[in-house]
């Protein structure tokens, strides 16, 4: 199907089903129960983040997973995409299609320039070059290009770029005359519209923005599968395993790596544009280098160089960030109330540093654990588990087959 082999088709179908049914899958607990408040993730904002960061990390994986070039400046493209999309909303129309197209084009141009320069070096130098470019973009967006009093205020600095009532909006300027800020939409469908479905105690929310982003993620995922299986993807893997040998055979690897860099930059631009489409506000902090670090963390958590890894990583990171930051001391006390008081207070006192505002610490530790013990990320962890069970089964099978023969 769709020119994919059997395994990839299966994978794609599973991912498609998960994306389409996410509002059900992510809301396993009935509305209003205490478990729902903690573990339900089926609300639009979070679901949108799942798929948008999924797109971002899928793109990052095309560069890092296939070529092995570790870019530490990918958040710059995300930020650039966000700004481009908000400008489109301000100048042209609230329809998200021109905004997404522009954000991909602008991010593509930036990644072409930055990639052309950075790819002249490899290894750690490449990482530091991309880091330098990203910090440069961040500083520019934060200070010079964001100075409201100057004539070239592109980013609006610390406040962030946002919509205003007196924006031109050439195509649908008249529609916004009622004094309220217009909302982003895809033709007639507003991004923030949702359809609520009540089944028994459960409440399922089907959000327009989520499905738009989800379908775009499926398209991105499909393209990434095709890239992974194409001769182009093979060439990129060859670059990863031994670039020198490729050069000795007389092949110029630069166009291939540059193409991979631009593709992943455009993925990041699309993700940035989608972030702005869901909430038309773009700030410079999206471009800070720690944000780039977070992209790397998501990719590593999931599993670099695998197809499904980026989606797993992005989802895992966002979900746990969400849950961990919701747990506070009160919740911990409630959970541990079966313990004797002294022990309960002691354990809560320790866990206090790992939840709530301390979620960064937990994710940092988890990230280190994954790098130390599971270089292939959660996907490799899953494969190892699967193998372990499989081996056990075959062992059992062979044993039972062998004994009668003896």
């Amino acid at each position, binding site marked *: 199907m769709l020119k994919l082999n059997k395994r990839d088709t299966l994978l794609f179908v599973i991912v498609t089903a998960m994306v389409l049914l996410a509002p059900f899958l992510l809301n396993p607990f009935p509305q209003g129960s205490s478990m729902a408040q903690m573990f339900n993730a089926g609300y639009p904002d979070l679901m949108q983040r799942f798929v948008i960061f999924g797109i971002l990390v899928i793109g990052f994986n095309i560069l890092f997973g296939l070529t092995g070039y570790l870019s530490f400046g990918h958040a710059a493209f995300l930020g650039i995409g966000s700004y481009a999309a908000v400008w489109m909303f301000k100048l042209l129309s609230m329809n998200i299609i021109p905004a997404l197209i522009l954000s991909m084009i602008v991010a593509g141009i930036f990644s072409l320039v930055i990639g052309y320069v950075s790819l002249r070096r490899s290894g750690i130098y490449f990482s530091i070059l991309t880091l330098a470019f990203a910090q*440069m973009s961040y500083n520019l967006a934060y200070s010079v290009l964001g100075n409201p009093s100057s004539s070239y205020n592109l980013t609006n600095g610390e406040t962030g770029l946002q919509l205003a009532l007196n924006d031109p909006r050439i195509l649908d300027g008249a529609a916004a005359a009622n004094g309220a800020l217009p909302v982003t939409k895809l033709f007639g469908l507003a991004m923030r519209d949702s359809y609520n479905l009540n089944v028994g105690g459960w409440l399922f929310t089907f959000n327009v923005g989520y499905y738009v982003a989800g379908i775009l993620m499926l398209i991105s995922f499909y393209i990434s599968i095709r890239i992974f299986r194409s001769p182009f993807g093979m060439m990129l893997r060859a670059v990863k395993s031994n670039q020198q040998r490729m050069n000795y055979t007389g092949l110029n690897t630069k166009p291939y790596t540059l193409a991979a860099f631009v593709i992943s930059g455009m993925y990041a631009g699309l993700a940035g544009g989608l972030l702005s489409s869901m909430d038309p506000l773009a700030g410079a902090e999206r471009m800070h280098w720690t944000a780039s670090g977070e992209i790397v963390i998501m990719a590593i958590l999931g599993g670099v160089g695998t197809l499904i890894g980026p989606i797993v990583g992005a989802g895992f990171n966002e979900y746990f960030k969400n849950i961990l930051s919701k747990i506070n001391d009160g919740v911990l006390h409630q959970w541990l109330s079966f313990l004797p008081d002294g022990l309960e207070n002691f354990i809560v006192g320790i866990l206090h540093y790992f939840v709530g505002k301390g979620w960064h*610490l937990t994710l940092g530790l988890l990230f*280190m654990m994954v790098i130390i013990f599971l270089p292939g990320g959660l996907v490799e962890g899953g494969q190892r588990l699967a193998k372990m069970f499989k081996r056990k089964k075959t062992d059992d099978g062979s044993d039972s087959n062998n004994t009668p023969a003896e």
Partner: protein
Amino acid sequence: MDQILLQILNGLDKGSAYALIALGLTLIFGTLGVVNFAHGALFMIGAFCAVTLQRILNISTVTIDPTKTDFLGNPATIKTPVVETWFGPEMGASIIDWSVPLAILFAIPIMAAVGFIMERGLIKHFYKRPHADQILVTFGLAIVLQEVIKAFYGANPIPTPAPEAFRGSFDFGTYLGYEANAIIYPYWRMVYFAFSAVIIAAVFAFLQFTTFGMVVRAGMADRETVGLLGINIDKRFTIMFAIAACVAGLAGVMYAPINSPNYHMGMDFLVLSFVVVVVGGMGSLPGAVLAGFMLGILEAFASMNQVKAIFPGIDQIIIYLVAIIIILTRPRGLMGRRGVMEE
């Protein structure tokens, strides 16, 4: 002319910080071949050593003085720092006043221990792994250390004043024949510059004139041969890691009065110090020092109003711009050796 002199002086203190951090980074890279993204966190831990010592010295006993009342009419409480009861009021007060310089003594064992644990506990296991893994695991460690500090000290910057004697500024211009107030420079920045010069000189002297340093230099040049000669080079490299951690930590201790320590100061300095190392040349100690001072001064010049009028915002990007140009034109950096990190 006085403007130029002023900018050079302004660049020196930031340049000193860059040079010290970059020196430590290069020491680690040159000896162990590890790219340490947690080095900024070591700088931050150093600064928080100063904060901690200040807090320890300010532990007080509270007594109630019934003869005086505060503005609400309650008896006034008097806080007497324990140090003052131990050493007498004058001596005690001056010990508290000098808490930042004293923190140097306090920080050295702590930083050495942190460095030792870091190398033996974590980085040792990453020598054989690709550079990308080393970057990532130390990046994770940096996040963890930063969050631990944030959990214990809060997210706000903590003012850590310099000793009273160094708090003012000093009119440099009058000594050189310029009019008064043309070149004003805070005393503490002078101290910082002098301190970093001493540390840098000490590190170089240690490497150049001691047997230990000689072995380490030999190990940096050819680790395998030194190992074959029956020298336990790993042990010496571990000690060098601890020394590099001390250098970063001391840079942080003394920087605390210039910029109140906060939990993300390490990350802020880290990117810049990497750029410094790359500009200086990976693995070159003099290159790191030179590039540190050069970029610090360059940044100071770029933030002059006359320059900013021509290129707005140049002060924000000058360092990165220079780094990009240098990496592209001189891939080995200013003083990099052949064959270091060239895949």
